[in-house]
Every structure is written in structure tokens, then in C-alpha cells.
């Protein structure tokens, strides 16, 4: 881990970049802060589900480090994010607030992504080009290729990041998207959050190879497998891939090995299909304590900062919960709107 306060500007060749190829100490602290906020919010929504208030929750716990790194290494002010459904950290990182998200979980009026029409975290943002249209796994991949194609046609050096899981990699759409992206050298990052399970189906029943990254060779672009609990490693790989994409170098498949610390969703019970040993190993790969230890060792995080970050997260989530719970449901007359363009 090489924290550094002085970013080297050399590699930022194109357009406005938020960060440089090397993360600064404030960057690292900020990453930790968002991860803590995500964890706090995630725990809250799970609780709200258990209280019968949130109908469905897919926890991002275990994926936080990879998600924050991916957003930090790209530019939410211009890049495109076609996210998956387990992306709480990604959503906080691009700028959604706990209140925005809680309104989604409770489907309350003012929910910004779908007006309460969709499952939490689905829909599209207004200020950032981030979206997740559907729950149908895999559809986002060709769509992302199309988003990237449009940028390429207009000569705009933006990157499209498309998120998917190890399960999604089996869909025909994944193959078709990667094949097209390879042929047209599209500015796209295929960001696979491999947590070794698709609901209950383990990797060994999902594919006959060890890593999804192995497929990239069949599409003519690089693929790498990374430890998704290491945000700095992921940052560097995504940063490099994004630079290459902006400069006409084409797609990259980045596979991050993460753990799904919770059951698939609040409707699932993973003890039905995961062994005690598997669950124990999984817990040992929680990215939060690891990253915290790294930051402490590097002298970036001390007790006071740590406590401030977590108590601040708790306060934000508490306030947002209160406000979201108090908010009304959307007006029913909204539900016939936006079928077609309103002229």
C-alpha cells in the first residue's frame, strides 16, 4: 500500500479526472468513510426488513471495498455506470444519500431513481449516469456495450462500467456483449463481482473454469482476477483500465473476488446451502476490518477518526431513517405516467 499525498498527474491524459493513478491519504480516508456508511446503512435496511418495513434487501456487505475502488478510479461526472442490484456502496460513492436510498427501500415519495416503482436501488439517477433498469440478470451487459458505442461514435472519451456477478457471467447476453465490445474496442470495463455464489449455486456448478477472467482471451481483450477485499489493488487496476479505454485501448474484464457476507437477499437463508466451514472462511474475508487495519498501520486512521467516521455514519443513517419512515408513499396517480413520452 503506497499512500501518497502528491498525485502524479502524468497518467491523467484525458479530460477532467477526479483522482490520479495513486490514491492520496485523504482519498483513502474518504473511501473508508463511504465503506463505513455503506455498512451502517446496509445493517439498517436489513433491520428494517426484519421489522417488516423494507420488503426486500440485497446486502452489499463484503463487496464494499471493490465497489468503492471502482467508483474512485473512474469519474462519476462523466462516466457511465450500469450497476447490479448489490451496489449500495457504489450508489453512495456516486453521490446518492442514505435518505435517497432509504426512500427506495421503503418505497416512499421522492425516491429519486424510479419514483418508488422499482425494487430498491433500481431505476436511474438524474445527476449521474448510473442506472439499473431491470432485475433480469445479464441484460445490462449488451446495454452497456451500446452506451459505450454511443460515446465512441461521438468521440467522447468516457468510460462505461458494467457490473455483474459470477452468475450473470453464464448468460448468453454476457457473451454477446463481450464479443461485440471486443470487436469494436469499446471503452468499457466489465466489472465482475465474483462472490462464488449465485443465490445458492456455487462456482463449480456455474462454470468449469476457475476464473471468469479466463474468458476475456476469447474476446480479444485483457482480463484480470483481483482480490476484491483490497481496495487499493482494485483501484489501480480499474484506473489503468479506464485510462486505456479513454485512449482507444478497448475493453477490460476485471474480476474481483469478494465475499457475500449475508444471504442472497432478505428472502434467503444461506445456511441451507453453505457449510459452516465455508461461512467461517467467508467471514474472515470481510474487507472492512482488513482495510481498517491497513489504514491504521499506515498511520492514516487513528481511534478518534475511526470513531468519528462511524458515529457520523450512524447519525446520518438514523436521521435518514426517521425522515424516510415519516415520508408518505407516492401518490397513486403517478403510476400511469411515463408509459410513453409526455408531450
Amino acid at each position: 500500500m503506497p499512500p501518497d499525498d502528491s498525485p502524479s498527474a502524468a497518467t491523467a491524459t484525458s479530460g477532467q479526472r477526479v483522482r490520479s493513478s495513486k490514491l492520496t491519504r485523504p482519498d483513502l480516508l474518504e473511501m473508508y468513510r463511504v465503506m463505513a456508511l455503506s455498512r451502517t446503512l446496509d445493517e439498517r435496511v436489513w433491520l428494517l426488513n426484519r421489522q417488516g418495513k423494507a420488503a426486500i434487501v440485497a446486502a452489499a456487505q463484503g463487496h464494499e471495498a471493490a465497489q468503492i475502488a471502482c467508483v474512485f478510479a473512474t469519474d462519476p461526472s462523466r462516466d457511465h455506470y450500469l450497476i447490479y442490484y448489490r451496489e449500495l456502496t457504489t450508489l453512495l460513492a456516486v453521490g446518492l444519500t442514505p435518505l435517497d436510498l432509504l426512500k427506495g427501500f421503503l418505497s416512499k415519495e421522492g425516491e429519486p431513481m424510479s419514483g418508488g416503482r422499482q425494487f430498491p436501488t433500481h431505476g436511474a439517477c438524474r445527476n449521474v449516469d448510473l442506472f439499473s433498469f431491470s432485475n433480469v440478470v445479464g441484460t445490462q451487459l449488451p446495454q452497456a456495450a451500446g452506451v459505450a458505442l454511443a460515446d465512441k461514435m461521438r468521440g467522447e472519451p468516457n468510460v462505461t462500467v458494467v457490473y455483474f456477478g459470477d452468475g450473470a457471467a453464464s448468460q448468453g447476453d454476457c457473451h454477446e456483449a463481450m464479443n461485440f465490445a471486443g470487436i469494436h474496442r469499446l471503452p468499457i470495463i466489465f466489472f465482475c463481482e465474483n462472490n462464488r455464489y449465485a443465490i445458492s449455486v456455487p462456482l463449480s456448478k456455474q462454470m468449469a473454469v476457475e476464473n471468469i477472467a479466463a474468458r476475456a482471451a476469447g474476446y480479444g481483450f485483457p482480463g484480470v482476477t483481483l482480490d476484491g477485499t483490497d481496495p487499493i489493488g482494485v483501484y489501480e487496476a480499474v484506473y489503468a483500465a479506464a485510462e486505456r479505454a479513454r485512449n482507444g485501448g478497448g475493453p477490460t474484464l476485471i474480476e474481483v473476488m469478494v465475499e457475500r457476507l449475508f444471504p442472497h437477499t432478505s428472502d434467503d437463508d444461506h445456511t441451507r446451502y453453505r457449510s459452516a466451514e465455508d461461512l467461517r472462511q467467508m467471514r474472515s474475508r470481510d474487507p472492512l476490518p482488513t482495510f481498517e487495519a491497513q489504514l491504521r498501520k499506515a498511520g492514516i486512521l487513528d481511534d478518534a477518526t475511526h470513531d468519528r467516521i462511524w458515529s457520523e455514519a450512524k447519525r446520518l443513517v438514523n436521521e435518514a431513517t426517521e425522515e424516510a419512515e415519516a415520508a408518505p408513499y407516492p401518490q397513486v396517480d403517478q403510476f400511469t405516467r411515463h408509459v410513453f413520452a409526455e408531450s
Partner: protein
Amino acid sequence: MAVMTVLEAVRQAMLEEMRRDSRVFVMGEDIGARGGVFLATDGFLQEFGEQRVIDTPLAESSIAGIAIGAAVNGMRPIAEIEFADFVWPAMNQIVGEASRIRYGTNGNKFAPLVVRMPYGGGVRGGLYHSQTIDVVFAHQPGLIVIAPCTPYDAKGLLKAAIRADDPVVFLEHKRTYRLVRGEVPEEEYILPIGKADIKRAGSDMTVVSYGLMVHYCLEAARKLSDEGVEAEVVDLRTLAPVDRETFLESVRRTSKAMVVYEDNRTYGIGAEIAATIAQDAFHDLDAPVVRLAGPDVPAMAFAPPFEAEFMLSPEKIAAAMRDLAAY
């Protein structure tokens, strides 16, 4: 007689058929150790092993395609699509291929597969876990489409589907899974495919429906009965090939007809039923055929008020029945 849920009836039908016939096997996402997301195959892995209880990759087109191939090669696959909303990637294999194998080979080959899928709304499923996907299957000659609504029908028809020599799409309404309980005989029985069932006799109007809506229609009919109006409720059970005789015969007696379906209204299942009644019972009708259905929005939205607005209810149906009775 045992009392059980629709879900349990579905599970037992498969269990019995797998015990009876070694050619029968199940495949789909999470059907193994997990026992299926709704637990329709709970315990199957333990009893039948990994060879006959196949957890597939997340790839619906191949789930259907592999089932077709296995069926053509002598097996009796039961493929589960986790939610009907996710069957779209498999449409090519189901609607485009399975339906035409017998016809396109002049009877040299056939594909006796069953594709089961939970469908329907009222479960806070939002746009992509609430869809009623039926007309696209029912419109395709060569496919049998079944949509039962009681445990008795579910068990007897699923067993018939597994034994049928043709491809069957078997639609299970999610909301009925645990909500609807009913008696099921201890002894083995099979129900005939392609026969509608009069779930309630009545002389004042005929209400044709299927799936969860049958229960809502029955509830509405009970209310109307208190008001002196007796509605006959016909459950289609098989959507294709559809049993026209049963509902036409009923309409000829009652002279009034209503079709109730949960899906988007326009070009939905109810259009065919209404058109058939209007054509073939034209001179018997005392009033236009009423269609009650979901609104023409792209899908059922998530927030409780949206879902309630989309879904029909016993109250909404009773109101329409009242209007028709008064016509």
C-alpha cells in the same frame, strides 16, 4: 383427503412422478441444496441426487434448450424458471423451438418437457417479480399452457403435464402458493388437460377467469350472492388449447359474461375469451362481454399504493359484477 397448499401440491406432483418414472428429472436455478427459491423441490436433492436434480447455471435460454434436447432424447425434464419474469431469454427455445418440433419433423420427434414458472403479482415483486406472462405462450400452437389455481388442480394437472407427450408451460401463481389451501386425495389421480372447470354454479352471469383471480372472483360471487345475484365462475385451468365449450355453454345459460384477468388488458388472454363469446354466443348475450384486467402500464410497480392500484381485488370485481347484473 389431505389439506395442503398449492406449493405443496406442486412439490408432491413432481415427487410422485420422479419416484414413478426414472426418466423424470428437475433442473433449474437453485433447485438443489436450496430446494428452489419457493421450496418447490425441497428435499429432492437428498432423495434423488445430483443427477436428477440439476442446479443449472444462470442462463434461461439454455435451461429450456437443454430440457428440449433431453426430452427429444427420451427423458422427461421438468425445467423451473425461477420467476416467469425471467423466461424472456428462453422464449426463443420455448415458443420458437419446443412448440414446433413435432410439427416440423412431421411427427418424427417430439419434446415432452414441462417448463414450470411462478408468475403473477400482489407479492410486492415490483416490475420484474410480478409479471403475468401467458398470452405469448398461449398464442403459440404446439404448446400446452396450464395455469391452475387450487392444490387439487395443481397436482392433478402437473402430473398430467409431466406425462404428456407435448411441451407444457405450467404457470403457478406465486400468491396462491401459500395462500390457497385445499383438499387433495391421498390416492393418485390425474386431471385432463384442456378442460375448464366450473368452480361455482350460478345462473345470472358467467365469469371466466384463471389463476389467483379465480379466488377473487369466487369471493366477489359470494358477496353478490348475499345481494341475490348468482354468478357462475369458470376456471379455464388450461389456457391452450383452450376449452371453449365449457364457458360458451355457461354463457348460453346465463346470457351475461365477464372475463377477469390480472395481466395488462390489451391483447391479453381475456381478449380471445371475450371475442369468442361475442362471436359464438352472440344471440344469447343480453349485455356486452365485460373485460376486467390490469391497466396498460408496462408492469406492476413496487410501492404499495401502485401495486394495489394495478391489482384487481374482490371488491373491484364485485363492483363490476353488480354493474353487469344491473345491465
